[in-house]
């Protein structure tokens, strides 16, 4: 898996979400991208009940169609100190969460989904998707993966230039906040990093009032 940058593309006032996605698809098509299927990243949230004692703990279970046999679970524990414990598991982990439904209940209305098309262009993989929460549109997410490299620091400049060519000034000149934490620019990139970026964006979308 190559380094992946996830960006939220702001929807202009005079356009709808799907129109914005169409516009980006036209731009990437003009660069010579080839459509190659669809993608889906979804996130379901489970919360511990009051009988657990203490502040509630949250488990976010995410799936990425790029890694179809894996389930990613991120547990947010209030601590102290507050921390997030990641887990990568087999597909049957969903069955286990179902078994634990009496202890960790799912909040169906906060289920979020990023769905859209995949494009391949030279060594890049670009995914343009719309984010919805219970069928309500929340935003447009663009995921760009540079497949040959798995150290973010080594290819950030190249990716920034590529992204600015079709996304414009939305792309900042500094790496996204996710990569500025710890030593992430120099660590080996894992699929879990993509999932954590999706979770960060989903969390910020949840805070925004319905569009």
């Amino acid at each position: 898996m190559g380094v992946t940058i996830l960006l939220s593309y702001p929807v202009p006032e005079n356009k709808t979400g799907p129109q914005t996605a169409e516009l980006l698809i036209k731009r990437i098509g003009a660069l010579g991208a080839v459509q190659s299927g669809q993608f889906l990243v979804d996130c379901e949230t489970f919360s511990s009940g009051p009988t657990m004692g203490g502040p509630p703990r949250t488990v976010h279970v995410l799936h990425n169609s790029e890694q179809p046999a894996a389930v990613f679970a991120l547990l947010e524990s209030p601590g102290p100190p507050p921390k997030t414990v990641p887990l990568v598991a087999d597909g049957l982990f969903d069955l286990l969460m179902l078994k634990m439904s009496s202890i960790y209940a799912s909040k169906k209305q906060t289920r979020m989904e990023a769905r859209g098309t995949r494009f391949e262009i030279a060594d890049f993989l670009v995914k343009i998707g719309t984010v919805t929460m219970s069928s309500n549109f929340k935003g447009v997410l663009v995921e760009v993966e540079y497949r040959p490299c798995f150290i973010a620091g080594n290819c950030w400049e190249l990716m920034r230039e590529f992204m600015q060519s079709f996304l414009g000034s939305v792309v900042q000149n500094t790496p996204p906040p996710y990569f500025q934490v710890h030593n992430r620019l120099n660590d080996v990139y894992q699929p879990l990093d993509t999932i954590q970026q999706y979770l960060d964006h989903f969390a910020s979308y949840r805070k925004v009032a319905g569009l």
Partner: protein
Amino acid sequence: MNEMGVTTNSAFLCLFTSASAFGSPIVQMAQQTVNTAIDSLSAALKSNIIPNQEYFLQGSILDSSVEVLLHRLRGLCDNVDTTLETFHDHEMCFSIRGPNNAQPALQLRVRRSLDHNGMPMQLRYIGQPEIGDKSRPTVLRNSIDIGTSNTVVEFLTELGCRKDFEYLAKGYMFRKGRMKITVFKVFKIDETRKMSGGAFESLTALTHSYLVELSVLAPSGQDAIADDMRCFAEQLRPLVQLEKIDYKRLVHGP
């Protein structure tokens, strides 16, 4: 080789093909949809291909006779071309209490191989065993096996699980068709002698015998496999009597 060996999950895994394989080729690519993981799992559950039932028999054999048993198993089983497959696993048992304290706690087991540090850890949910009557040759229990990354112990602890006990299992693993036979010794872990990096310096055996387990993981409804298991168990008599053990009779709980 880890005790869990190679489980035949291939039928289940083939459902998870790449995103572009879904959808009819006639329909334009823009209209292809990707199924959610939950939809795929529901479809797998409906078509009964998830191996979530375990049929098993247990027995034990004294240390003095285990060599004879191993020799007999080498003659009967498939995976003994060169040397015997050994395993050295560390298993931890966790439980988490439900909202209603009257409900039995949910038990989860985490198993890791001490011989192969890079392998995934195994998280296992085991349901209540069904002993059944005389017509049922084996014990049947619900079993969900999940391979996980090595953060699973921290994950379960933060989830609210409590570690009940742990032990080491060291022994041999045999396969015959779908059946897995393990002959292993249980060791108590001496906390004070734990070395850094998860290794254990000294081991105290719990008994002077080896535990023998015969098990098959299959989707529900394949009861014919239980008869094959009973036939195989007959071939190991009188060295070891593999039979259904009713835990409720052994445990004198509150």
